[in-house]
């Protein structure tokens, strides 16, 4: 079954009105419902929310050595807030899950196919 990455995108400083506690509760509850639905239908492979990008550490090869440094890899305003990996028959099925996810998470979702369908 083909796999898709549904990534949740947040834009720094573009929070708009901060969510009230009630809205946060509501969103959290919807996410739980969605996760359960993904699991019960077999679409769920993995998923989770990430800490803020400032908590990131990057390792890279430089001059034959592996260097460790602080910070997110990409200095951009947009960052990955969390993701799902799901199994879906085709793009339409993946988009249906993404539509539910964006309603629950209240953030834009990017849908990308995994390269190897059998991976």
């Amino acid at each position, binding site marked *: 079954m083909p796999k898709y990455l549904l990534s949740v995108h947040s834009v720094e400083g573009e929070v708009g009105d901060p969510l009230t506690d009630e809205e946060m509760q509501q969103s959290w509850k919807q996410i739980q419902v969605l996760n359960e639905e993904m699991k019960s239908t077999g679409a769920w492979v993995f998923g989770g929310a990430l800490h803020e990008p400032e908590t990131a550490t990057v390792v890279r090869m430089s001059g034959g050595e592996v260097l460790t440094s602080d910070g997110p890899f990409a200095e951009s305003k947009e960052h990955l807030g969390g993701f799902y990996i799901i199994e879906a*028959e085709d*793009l*339409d099925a*993946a988009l249906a899950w993404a539509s539910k996810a964006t309603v629950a998470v209240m953030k834009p979702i990017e*849908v990308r*196919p995994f390269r190897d369908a059998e991976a």
Partner: protein
Amino acid sequence: MRDGDAAAKLDAAEVGRIFREESGRSVAALIGVFGDIDVAEDAVQEAFAVALRKWPGDGLPPNPGGWITTTARNRAIDRLRRESRGRELLSEMAVLSPGNDEPGLPEEVGPMQDDRLRLIFTCCHPALSTQAQVALTLRLLGGLSTKEVASSFLVAEPTMARRLVRAKRKIKAARIPYRVPEAHELPDRLRPVLAVLYLVYNAGLTNPAEPGLCAEAIRLARILATLMPD
């Protein structure tokens, strides 16, 4: 022998006209068979090259569209047999009938299921950019060459070629389905299709070099109207 006068008048321009009329249906049918746009496109192209050689001498077959589809299908099978990836594809297909071992002697198939509606919705899938939707629709359903599509939209041919390649790669990689949306999805999914037809029509109006695009848009709209469930 079919009537010789008609055969004599059958020149390249006439075959070209038939190509525009018929290629969309053939491409759509072969995508349905092989599940691969490139395979379908190349095979139909090849079948028309054969038609261009044969028809002026032999005369028009009774069902030119069916002849093209059958010839293209046989060519595609021949080609796939020669490639290892193709052999895998073929082994996955249940459609191989035992009778077509003889390439070059296409047997005309019965009435083809019309897959063009599926193809319209794949080409105009909202996951593709509007530009890509328009280009794919003209190329695959309208039978326009990449060069013709490029000049309709006043871009260079290599630019259009890249755009088409990218769009087809996305259809394949992301698995944009090849099917008519279900009734409850239609209101959303029909909108980009109609927008594409409008853009094609408009491109014909504003680009005096391509007046054929207006007719093409009307033709595609007619096909859509005929094939759509009520």
